[in-house]
């Protein structure tokens, strides 16, 4: 559905997107993850025909964004970052304006507006001015204007920024619901959001794609490189010394003293090895009491931080 090849974008001399390529199949919900300034918004702006690439080709449904721009734009519903809207219009006029500008023919206009108002839960505010709406309702209106022509492709740039947790869940449900028959690109730096809604994740950092796969695939490829937290009592010093000989343990990340004879230790584990049994045996051998042992699953968050951050796990 969307095919991006060797896309590069310079702003003046600064490189925003560095030779990225990816394909998005019809009907997938793709999470576009990356820290701020990674190039997400730039990529999305190119796909929506707002900007032109410095080099590379982008095809949307086999139509080139440069030569067939109008056709491409017809297929896409776009919610830009921060949901920019006309604050002096009321909600229903705003939706109608976008619909008219899209020359959306072929269905009875009134019905589609009612549908979109209902899908986005705007029923109570249709006569209100956009300027009077709360942030949550503005995001919904932004979504409504993106959905009005029932687009095949929906592109949402950080749709839940600035919303409270309840609103975030509502918007997320909206995305999942409308995602059943649409191709969706969701830009975000909020990881649980992507984990919850997307069936494919692209992690982008400094203009390059650094990971690509389903959330599960990404997790399994990084599995094992996690951490184990243990709480131990008695013979602490000798235990800590001996952990160095356990095969699966890379290093001690952190030691917290809980009381004189009780410590909590975070251990980094080597990729692919699960050292929990060895830790247990070491405890018995050393006559250390093991009060607690917890293995943290690699979350998308860890992967994200590994790939994009300077921070070490």
């Amino acid at each position, binding site marked *: 559905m969307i095919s991006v090849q060797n896309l590069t974008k310079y702003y003046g001399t600064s490189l925003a997107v560095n030779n990225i390529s990816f394909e998005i199949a019809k009907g997938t919900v793709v999470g576009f993850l990356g820290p701020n300034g990674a190039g997400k918004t730039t990529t999305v702006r190119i796909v929506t025909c707002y900007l*032109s690439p410095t080099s590379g080709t982008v095809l949307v449904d086999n139509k080139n964004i440069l030569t067939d721009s109008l056709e491409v734009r017809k297929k896409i519903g776009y919610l830009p970052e921060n949901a920019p809207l006309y604050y002096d*219009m009321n909600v229903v006029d705003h939706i109608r304006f976008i619909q008219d500008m899209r020359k959306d023919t072929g269905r009875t206009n009134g019905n589609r507006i009612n549908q979109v108002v209902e899908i986005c839960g705007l029923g109570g505010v249709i006569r209100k001015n956009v300027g009077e709406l709360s942030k949550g309702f503005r995001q919904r209106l932004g979504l409504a204007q993106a959905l009005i022509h029932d687009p095949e492709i929906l592109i949402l740039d950080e749709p839940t920024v600035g919303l409270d947790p309840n609103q975030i869940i509502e918007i997320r449900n909206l995305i999942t619901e409308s995602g059943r028959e649409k191709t969706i690109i969701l830009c975000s730096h909020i990881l649980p959001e992507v984990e919850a809604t997307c069936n494919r994740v692209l992690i982008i950092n400094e203009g390059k794609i650094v990971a690509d796969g389903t959330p599960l695939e990404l997790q399994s490829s990084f599995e094992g490189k996690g951490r184990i937290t243990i709480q131990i009592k008695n013979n602490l010093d000798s235990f800590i010394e001996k952990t160095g000989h356990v095969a699966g343990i890379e290093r001690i990340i952190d030691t917290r003293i809980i009381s004189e004879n009780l410590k909590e230790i975070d251990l980094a584990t080597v990729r692919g090895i699960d050292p929990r049994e060895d830790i247990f045996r070491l405890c018995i051998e050393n006559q250390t009491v093991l009060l607690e042992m917890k293995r943290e699953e690699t979350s998308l968050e860890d992967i994200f931080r590994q790939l994009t951050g300077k921070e070490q796990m």
Partner: protein
Amino acid sequence: MNQILVLAKKEFRSYFDSPVAYVVITLFLIIAGWQFSTTLFINNTADLRTLFGIAKFILLFFIPAVSMRLFSEEKRGGTLEILLTLPTRDWQLVLGKYIAAYALILITLALTGIHYISISAMGDPDFGASIGGYIGLALVVGVYLAIGIFTSSLTQNQIVAFIMAFVIIFIFFILDKFVYFMPGFLANMLEFLSIDYHYNNISRGVIDTRNLIYYFSMIFMFLFLTVQVLESRKWK
């Protein structure tokens, strides 16, 4: 065509949803009417010439005020991104906004027609000259507005857009006031570029194609530049 009118309608409404339209219309009518009526009995002639003279001068301030928000507000608010990702061509957007602002100004000018009615009661104004004056004024306003929409596309700050528009319009307005100090060929050129010079021809009731070509090419040029500015986002 349809989309141009949809946008024009929306822009036109938003002038009336905000105080802009009311302030512009009221202030313009008060200033123009006051200036016109104070000199009417001194001149003691039943014509609208002084009105047109005043109008083209005070519109120098009013037009940039009307046009300044057209694109700069969209830039500042980010709505330009929504507008430019709709399946419309850039020139359609420019034209739609231009038409909306033009309509507002034409309505304002049309309201001064009341002065024609009142002087008709007192004397016998020349209908042809009055119509000529209005046509000339409409063309002058068209150029002012094209310049205004152009500067509005350059910045996201409305005040900056206003000042730039005012300065550019003012330069074109006073060009022919310098011709006395200029050598011949330069004088002719300046004269031809001046907004006012062409207006003076038309308001005499002589509608020459040279004058029309001047106005239409000025309007076209600035609208074309505006489209180029919008498209500059796509420069590689």
